[in-house]
């Protein structure tokens, strides 16, 4: 079953052939071996029941050719920007040499010392949570990416932005390793922009390691005017004492996509907030799968997701909270809600609690339905037409998931995207 039936070879074999032209670390070779053995995950694996990734990648795309494309990229954010174009760093478009004091950015490919590779490519700490080969595949094939190290005590106000742009049919494997030292804090914007009109395949991993009392504000935005982007965005997070992650993800792309999060709250008072909004227009399939492991006492996790599903789109939410025996007085909250704007849209929701400690507070809830008729009538009785009333209600619904935004600029950015989306939808329907 591991073979790709249409080509009779393993998907992404060509990527591996190219990658292994360079010297490869043991981690990467082993990761490829594990992947070759199991292949891509399919619906027979419990956590891939709703999202059959193997079926979605029957035909695997090649890495992008090395031609230098002329491309203009508008700056959407005031940030230290790092651009990956079709999976490869674009120095000329990146601020890699403009980083402020206390921020050290290395390209994983150019400065390929074995030591750095070891740090950034070893994901064995997550082996109890990860049951498939998606991250292995990324480890083996990452064609580019960064190691970002933040010095102790450094707090950046201007965000660092990783802009992953795809302009043509290709497969992209990128990896970012963020290493936050004690008491440091950054804003990170992770943007995927698929502008390929002939499809794209993406496997992007962000590995964040947070030392005591450090903080990461993460905004992940999946977007683009291109067609059918098939892919996985992974967040691996390890948090030490008092560290915190506040992550907001916004989906606004055409395609078949999963964002998966594996988070370990390793020491006391570590906390993670994982919020997200899914805007799905046509035949999109959007999946958020999350596993948070509470390993220590007094750790907190909080997840709020909102799905707005139009036409024939499908939403998936799978959230798992694991509380280890040592993690007394932990607090885990998980909620997903979906609005179905069409009879053909569908939502699959699967919350799971695995609790091995007795003194914990964990809860989950999920709902799925249409727009509330009473609210709609109330607004219309005041003169708003149906579309305007619906837009207002949808906006309010979506923003319940973004209440944790700390940054007004980001909050406004998402508000505008939502308004545009609703406007386009309105003009199409």
């Amino acid at each position, binding site marked *: 079953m591991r073979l790709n039936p249409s080509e009779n070879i393993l998907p992404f074999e060509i990527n591996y052939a190219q990658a292994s032209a360079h010297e490869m670390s043991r981690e990467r070779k082993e990761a490829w071996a594990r992947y070759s053995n199991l292949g891509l995950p399919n619906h027979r694996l419990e956590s891939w029941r709703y999202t059959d990734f193997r079926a979605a990648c029957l035909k695997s795309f090649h890495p992008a050719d090395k031609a230098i494309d002329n491309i203009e990229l508008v700056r959407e954010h005031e940030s230290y920007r790092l651009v990956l174009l079709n999976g490869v760093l674009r120095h000329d478009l990146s601020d890699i040499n403009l980083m402020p004091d206390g921020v050290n950015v290395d390209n994983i490919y150019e400065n390929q010392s074995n030591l750095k590779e070891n740090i950034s490519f070893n994901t064995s700490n997550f082996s109890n949570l990860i049951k498939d080969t998606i991250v292995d595949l990324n480890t083996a094939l990452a064609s580019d990416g960064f190691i970002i190290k933040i010095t102790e005590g450094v707090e950046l106000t201007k965000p660092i932005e990783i802009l992953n742009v795809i302009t043509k049919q290709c497969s992209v494997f990128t990896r970012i390793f963020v290493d936050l030292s004690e008491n440091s804090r950054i804003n990170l914007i992770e943007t995927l922009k698929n502008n390929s009109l002939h499809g794209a395949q993406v496997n992007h991993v962000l590995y964040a390691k947070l030392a005591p009392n450090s903080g990461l504000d993460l905004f992940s935005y999946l977007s683009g005017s291109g067609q059918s982007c098939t892919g996985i965005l992974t967040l691996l997070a390890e948090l030490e004492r008092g560290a915190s992650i506040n992550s907001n993800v916004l989906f606004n792309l055409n395609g078949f996509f999963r964002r998966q999060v594996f988070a370990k709250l390793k020491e006391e008072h570590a906390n993670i907030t994982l919020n997200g909004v899914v805007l799905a227009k046509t035949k999109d399939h959007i999946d958020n799968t999350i596993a948070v492991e509470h390993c220590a006492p007094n750790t907190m996790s909080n997840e709020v997701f909102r799905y707005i599903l139009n036409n024939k789109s499908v939403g998936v939410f799978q959230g798992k909270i694991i509380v280890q025996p040592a993690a007394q007085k932990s607090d885990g909250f998980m909620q997903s809600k979906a609005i179905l704007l069409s009879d053909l849209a569908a939502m699959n929701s699967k919350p799971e609690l695995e609790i091995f400690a007795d003194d914990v507070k964990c809860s989950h809830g999920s709902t799925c339905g249409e727009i509330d*008729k*009473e*609210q709609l*009538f*109330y*607004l*219309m*009785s*005041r*003169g*708003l*037409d*149906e579309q*305007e*009333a619906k837009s*207002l*209600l949808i*906006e*309010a*619904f979506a*923003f*319940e998931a973004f209440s944790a935004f700390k940054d007004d600029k980001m909050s406004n950015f998402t508000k505008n995207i939502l308004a545009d989306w609703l406007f386009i939808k309105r003009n199409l329907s």
Partner: protein
Amino acid sequence: MLEVNDLHVSVGDREILKGFTLKVAAGEVAAIMGPNGTGKSTLSYVIAGREGYTITRGEILLNGVNLLDLAPHMRAANGVFLAFQYPVEIPGVACMQFLKAAMNAQRRSRGDEEINTPEFMKRVREESEKLKISQEMLRRPLNSGFSGGEKKRMEILQMALLQPKLSILDETDSGLDIDALKTVSEGVNSLRNPARGFLIITHYQRLLDYIKPDTVHVMAQGRIQKSGGAELALELEKHGYQNYVSNEAA
């Protein structure tokens, strides 16, 4: 201005309004009183255009326009306003955003320009002060977590800003404390003019002490049983509805 003729309305297979007929002239304040479950809220919802009712017979005309042909927002555009018996909570939609959207929607439908922000703020401040609605309350999401009385005052604020031709107040007095009852009544009275009509649904004479009705109608069993002047409300206060409720329908 408002003419309801022989209106029959059912929910499922149960008929609730059974030949309801009523006229309200321009400038008139008409009060409707009647026992619980008689169909007063049903009537107001049907006038405002809520879904879920089957209209089997009759018509509702506002200045000659048949409201039953119109979607709720077009009825609002034609000047209908319902102050809900139970205002709906809308978490996530800020009061101010909603008020502006409502005012602009109605302006657009009249072909007027949208209101500019300073003008809007000024209007809201003026009217909310009259109704003793705090700025803090206006910063909150619409009706969510508002007390019963706060919700009712919010309804009247909307009425004041939208300046409807026909205002239906469905038990706006219930849940109001004595002072709020006065301020709300003043709000209504200040809107009274020869071009506007009011339909005031209430259980209590007290509201009618503040808002003097021109006509009082007793509604029971899905239609008007008796109409009269303000004195009819006093009679009801004394004798209740026993004379208007027949046994056969109970």
